[in-house]
């Protein structure tokens, strides 16, 4: 279709307007017109004629005729070499007439001529104004969208984008250029690098430290040398200090020694005084003094003895009988023994004989020789052993018994104590519950209760008596009194009757007064009076009867009885109130109180009885306990005694065994058996024969003794008694006299002996004194001294000499302790010179030096130790190795991270390139043509127009000649309009080719916002289009654009609402 001309019947400012012939050309048609000339009206007329007028409700302007004419018009076009006339009126919006050479054509023909394009698409793409050019939405609607946005892959693009973002996110987490390592979300590799820097820094420091080891070793050597030097000097200083110290401490000793030596030399020669001279002298002196004292003492004793001797009798006549008497006494003793033995021998002979017989049978021929040899001993020992063994056994048994008794008694005593305590506790409980009374007290309290009970009873009786007396008195008074109260003789019932009568009378009066019935009134009054009279009569009779029973003596009697009863009552009350106060109860005592009192007494009685019983039991237990304790103590004493006895017996037994050379562990029975066997055996051998003989001999000796006794008494001129006993008594007295004289004689003998001893001692003392004196004299002569004074003088000097020598030796020893065997010559020289050097100052200086050196040495040693520790630490330190390993680990991690990142980055790059490729290969041809045109229009500033893969909307993206892709909102208005124009041109070309149609391109001043250069480029593009057969109708108000038109363009001008050629 190519437009040729039009006839606007009426539309807007146009009325009957037509293009001048030859009308529109095939190519570029240029219509100029100033503002308000009708360019937009013309554009709308063309669009409305081709596709129909809008309705009244449409937003599109209908372009009503302003200057007359029918609203509508005709359009002449050519298609397929034929000319068509298309008529359309606004009244019939959709209706039209299409004629070709007089033939009426249908809608199908018109649609075919229009390439089946719709009005909207035509408005968007083929016939548009400047405002419509700027409307992007028009490109994204309808069929336009299908062509322009063919490259998008819709929802699948989201997947790609998501993948891209995911990879990018992962890559960024590993490495991102320019990221700060200290940021919280810093990429891993950046953080690792930062960490590696730190570790490498530490490693460098550690290596640097380890490299200092040789230097430190050298330093250590220097320190050691320094310490050795200081030690050498210290040794010298210490030696000097010690030397000075010795001199200082030894000097006083040396001085004392020298003084002592000088003093000793001044004493002269004392060698003649022997070392033991003083001792010898002292011994002699002591001996002499002792001898003298002894002599004096003996002399006194001799005098005393002499005096005592003088007091003794001169003779002792009975002493001549002394020997005889002694013999008699011995004989008597022998006699007693002999008699006893004889008796025993006789009694034991038979037993012994029997015993020996038995034992001999038992022992047979194996009789021990030792036993025979020890017979005498054994004979005695057997009894002794038996006795002792028995004692031990008895004592042991006694101990057991006493112990058992003691234990039993102690247990009983403790049990009794426990019982006592229990009873005491019970007793305490009872006494806490209330007071405890003796049985007498209880009886007394019970008697008191009885008395009170009786008193109460009596009180009631007395009160009843009193009541009765008073009643009697009242009655007597009633009948004897002249003036008695009315009630005493007018009982109540009578008064009531009187009142009733009075009322009846009053009623009768009233009846009579009001009724006038006199008879009724009179009768009533009479009846009342009768009743009153009867009452008075009856009462008077009763009173008269009572009066007859009373008389005045009775009244007095009644009064007396009443007073007596009252007194009795008062006395009783007074008496018992006092007692009640004493007894602690109230008066009068009620029966309840008495009952409670009785209960209380019963309880007290029970409690007292219980307490009494308990007390008795307690006392009994206590007595028994005391008894048991006494028994226990006795038993304990007995036990102790038994133990002591046992101990003694045991000791004796042990001693016995020891004496008998028997083991102490031997049992008494065994020992006794042994002895018994020996005794019995021997006795069987010997005693049996001897005993009888001995007894006979003893009897004979006794007889001779008696005779001798009698003779002796006669010799003593003592009359012999008849009987043996008297003779014995006389002999006893004689013996006493002999004893007395013997005593005196012995005293005399003792004194004589003492006198002799004293004499001898006196002589010895004199001799001793003389010898001592001789020794002393010899000593003084030996020493060459004249007398004792000279001796003492020499002795003192000698002592002094020795003391000084001792002092010198002591000092020498002390000095040797300080200085050793060889004394320093410095001492002697200093002493001789008399000027002592200032050793203290010198020592102080050395000590200061020592301190300084010690401090220096300590410091050096401390440094040396620190160095050694440091060196040792570094030699054994794995710090470098650890840091190196750590650094290598970090490097490995970084390397891994970078490898990961490279993989991701490669994938991302590949994805990006694939995306570009895909986009490039999948854009619509229309957009490709638009891109080409846009590149021409913009002079190459923009490379390409494309739709991104993921685009779901009309997201056109512009790729500039350089730099990233841009969205539409990044473009200027003019560029944006150029872009939209190019898209439309591209689409028009693509559409026409696709549909095989030719359609006119109508534009209403679309280049107003283009810069001149791009306007020129745009016109070049349009010229190119027109050259390719595209009919273009370009409406504008800019006449200068004529210069840009191709030469074959047809130019028209709108003037005064008419079209004319220019």
């Amino acid at each position, binding site marked *: 279709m190519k437009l040729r001309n039009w006839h606007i019947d009426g539309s807007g400012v146009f009325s009957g307007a037509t293009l001048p012939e030859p009308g529109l050309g095939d190519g570029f048609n240029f219509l100029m017109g100033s503002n308000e000339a009708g360019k937009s009206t013309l554009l709308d007329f063309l669009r409305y004629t081709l596709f129909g007028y809008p309705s009244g409700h449409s937003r599109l302007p209908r372009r009503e005729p302003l200057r007359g004419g029918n609203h509508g018009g005709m359009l002449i076009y050519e298609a397929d070499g034929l000319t068509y006339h298309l008529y359309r009126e606004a009244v019939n919006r959709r209706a039209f007439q299409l004629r070709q050479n007089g033939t009426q054509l249908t809608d199908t023909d018109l649609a075919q001529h229009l390439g089946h394009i719709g009005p909207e698409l035509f408005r968007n793409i083929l016939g548009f104004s400047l405002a419509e050019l700027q409307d992007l939405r028009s490109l994204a609607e309808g069929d336009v969208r299908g062509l322009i946005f063919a490259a998008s*892959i819709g929802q699948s693009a989201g997947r790609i984008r998501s993948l891209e973002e995911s990879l990018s996110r992962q890559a960024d987490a590993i490495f991102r250029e320019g990221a700060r390592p200290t940021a919280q979300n810093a990429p891993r590799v950046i953080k690792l690098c930062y960490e590696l820097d730190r570790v490498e820094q530490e490693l460098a420091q550690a290596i640097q430290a*380890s490299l200092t080891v040789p230097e430190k*070793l050298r330093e250590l050597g220097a320190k050691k040398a320094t310490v050795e030097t200081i030690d050498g000097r210290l040794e010298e200083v210490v030696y000097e200090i010690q030397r000075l110290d010795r001199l200082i401490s030894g000097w006083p000793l040396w001085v004392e020694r020298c003084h002592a030596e000088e003093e000793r030399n001044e004493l002269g020669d004392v060698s003649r005084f022997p070392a033991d001279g003083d001792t010898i002298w002292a011994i002699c002196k002591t001996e002499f003094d002792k001898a003298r004292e002894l002599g004096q003492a003996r002399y006194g004793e001799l005098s005393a003895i002499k005096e005592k001797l003088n007091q003794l009798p001169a003779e002792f006549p009975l002493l001549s009988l002394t020997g005889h008497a002694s013999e008699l006494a011995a004989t008597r003793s022998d006699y007693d023994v002999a008699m006893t033995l004889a008796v025993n021998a006789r009694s034991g002979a038979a037993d012994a004989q029997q015993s020996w017989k038995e034992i001999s049978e038992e022992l047979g021929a194996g009789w021990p020789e030792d036993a025979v040899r020890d017979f005498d001993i054994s004979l005695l020992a057997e009894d002794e052993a038996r006795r002792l063994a028995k004692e031990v056994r008895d004592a042991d048994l006694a101990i057991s018994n006493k112990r058992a008794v003691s234990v039993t008694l102690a247990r009983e005593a403790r049990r009794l104590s426990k019982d006592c305590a229990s009873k005491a506790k019970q007793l305490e409980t009872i006494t806490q519950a209330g007071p405890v009374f003796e049985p007498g007290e209880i009886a007394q309290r019970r008697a008191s209760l009885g008395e009170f009970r009786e008193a109460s009873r009596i009180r009631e009786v007395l009160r009843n008596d009193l009541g009765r007396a008073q009643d009697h008195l009242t009655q007597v008074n009633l009948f004897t009194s002249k003036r008695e109260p009315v009630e005493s003789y007018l009982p109540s019932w009578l008064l009531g009757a009187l009142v009733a009568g009075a009322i009846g009378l009053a009623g009768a009066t009233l009846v009579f007064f009001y009724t006038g019935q006199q008879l009724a009134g009179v009768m009533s009054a009479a009846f009342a009076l009768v009743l009153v009279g009867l009452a008075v009569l009856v009462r008077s009779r009763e009173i008269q009867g009572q009066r007859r029973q009373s008389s005045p003596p009775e009244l007095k009697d009644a009064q007396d009885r009443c007073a007596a009863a009252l007194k009795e009552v008062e006395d009783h009350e007074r008496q018992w109130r006092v007692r009640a106060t004493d007894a602690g109860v109230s008066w009068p005592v009620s029966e309840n109180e008495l009952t409670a009192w009785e209960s209380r007494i019963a309880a007290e009685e029970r409690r007292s009885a219980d307490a009494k019983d308990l007390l008795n039991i307690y006392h009994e237990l206590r007595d028994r306990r005391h008894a048991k304790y006494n028994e226990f103590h006795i038993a304990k004493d007995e036990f102790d005694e038994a133990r002591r006895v046992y101990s003694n017996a045991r000791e004796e037994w042990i001693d016995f065994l020891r004496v008998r050379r028997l083991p102490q562990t031997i049992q008494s029975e065994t020992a006794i058996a042994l002895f018994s066997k020996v005794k019995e055996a021997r006795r069987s051998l010997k005693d049996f024969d001897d005993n009888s003989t001995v007894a006979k001999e003893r009897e004979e000796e006794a007889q001779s003794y008696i005779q001798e006794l009698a003779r002796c008494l006669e010799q003593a001129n003592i009359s012999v008694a008849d009987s043996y006993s008297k003779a014995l008594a006389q002999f006893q007295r004689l013996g006493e006299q002999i004893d007395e004289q013997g005593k005196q004689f012995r005293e005399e003998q003792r004194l004589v002996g003492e006198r002799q001893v004293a004499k001898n001692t006196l002589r010895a003392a004199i001799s001793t004194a003389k010898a001592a004196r001789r020794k002393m004299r010899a000593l003084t002569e030996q020493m060459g001294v004249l007398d004792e004074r000279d001796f003492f003088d020499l002795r003192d000097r000698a002592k002094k000499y020795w003391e000084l020598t001792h002092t010198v030796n002591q000092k020498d020893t002390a000095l040797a302790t300080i200085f050793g065997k060889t004394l320093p010559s410095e001492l002697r020289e200093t002493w001789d010179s008399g000027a002592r050097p200032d050793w203290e100052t010198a020592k102080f200086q050395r000590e200061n030096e020592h301190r300084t050196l010690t401090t220096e040495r300590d410091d050096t040693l401390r440094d040396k130790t620190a160095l050694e520790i440091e060196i040792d630490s570094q030699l054994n*330190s794995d710090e470098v*190795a650890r840091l190196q390993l750590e650094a290598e680990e970090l490097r490995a991690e970084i390397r891994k991270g*970078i490898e990961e990142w490279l993989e991701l980055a490669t994938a991302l790059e*590949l994805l990006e390139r694939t995306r570009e490729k895909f986009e490039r290969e999948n854009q619509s041809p229309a957009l490709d043509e638009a891109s080409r045109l846009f590149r021409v229009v913009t002079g190459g500033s923009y490379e390409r127009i494309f739709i991104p893969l993921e685009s779901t909307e009309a997201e056109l993206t512009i790729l500039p000649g350089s730099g990233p892709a841009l969205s539409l909102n990044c473009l200027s208005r003019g560029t944006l309009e150029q872009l939209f124009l190019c898209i439309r041109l591209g689409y028009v070309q693509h559409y026409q080719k696709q549909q095989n149609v030719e359609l006119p391109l109508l534009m209403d001043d679309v280049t107003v916002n283009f810069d001149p250069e791009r306007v020129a480029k745009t016109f070049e593009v349009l010229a190119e289009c027109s050259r390719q057969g595209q009919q273009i109708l370009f409406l504008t108000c800019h006449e200068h654009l004529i210069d840009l038109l191709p030469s074959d363009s047809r130019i028209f001008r709108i003037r005064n609402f008419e079209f004319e050629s220019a």
Partner: protein
Amino acid sequence: MTSFRFIHAADLHLDTPFTGVGKVNAALQQKLQDASLAAFDNLIGAAVRHGVDFVLLAGDIYDGAERGVRAQARFVEGLRQLNRNGIQCFFIHGNHDPVSEGWSALRPEDLPASAVLFDQSDAVRVVPAVRDGEILAVVHGISFRSRTEARNLSLLFPENRCDGQFHIGLLHCNVGGQAGHDNYAPCTLEDLCSRAIDYWALGHIHERMVLRSADPLVLYPGNLQARRFDECGPKGATLVHVNDRSRVEMEMLPLDEVRFAQLNIDVSGCKSLDAVLAACATSIAQALAQVRPRLLVTRLRLRGQTAAHHDLLKADVQGQLVPALRDQLPEDAVWLDQAIVATVPFVDRVEVGRSGGFEAALVQLTDALNASDNDSLDLQKKVRAPLLSGTRFDDFLSDLQPIAAREAVAQAESRLLGLMEEGEE
């Protein structure tokens, strides 16, 4: 000739850290830290146990003076122990401990009498190895003057034999320009053969290599303790028993404390993450059984087309894969350093390329990139650009090689295809 035995070791690098091992726990860190020293202790123990006559240490006793004095103290203590057992020790300086830097903390007088240090760098020094007054062998040695020794030191060794003794050359050098090591003291096998030496005790190359098995015998014993993942396998010293000049027996003594292992695990048959973890645990257990009682430090590379690819990727991305594996391992015996997921998903690239759509564009682009080394290299350069803005990461980036660039692209494509497939699911 009297038979004798000696131990030849080199490249002790005492007290140097492990490289390429990520952060480990504290207990293992101490073990790793002391591993080189413990390996040295093992060497001394082995010398005493085998009753060798002397020990040869062919340079690089430790990494350098900056490595701290602990290594030196430990080394001297080891020498003293050898001395107490009557074992001589001959050692030289290598590029890591050249004479010019030498011993820093320890003085020559600290060394025991039986230790012989060839501290001359201008001429070869000759010291006999003696047992009970009898010369067993003659040891020739020379040390590096500086870290970058450029002289051919082998030519300083004697050319003519003047006695019937067994001569040993102790030298730190790079024979034939071995790749992967600095070409210090360069020499050729011919140079060595031209000298009157029966046994070349070499050092410098960390891989055990017998360059010539006889006449003369030329041997690199390898380093004593591996320190990186490119030093996998047993490490230690060589016990040499010399019966005659022509009868020399050698035995490798593994003395390392920590052993590195890179395990390539094909998880094609594993359909789930659990199955992959089980396969990994099995592989590690097998490797561990071979190295016990040493500590195994391992790195896994999971490869193959597996249905668990997505789960592996996800677990790897979320940092859960390695901890999950570590949980299944005895932590005092093995340390899993890294698990590299190099698996591919079940995606038919050809089909994807034909299918159209975004995935097809990706496949086509990858194919285009891989078709041109320049394109793939350009892509890698562009990717690396942010890392190359300074010099901070230079040490962490490997050289850009076309193969590596193509692999990176392929890996990225695999990852993207897997992720996109997962997204569709």
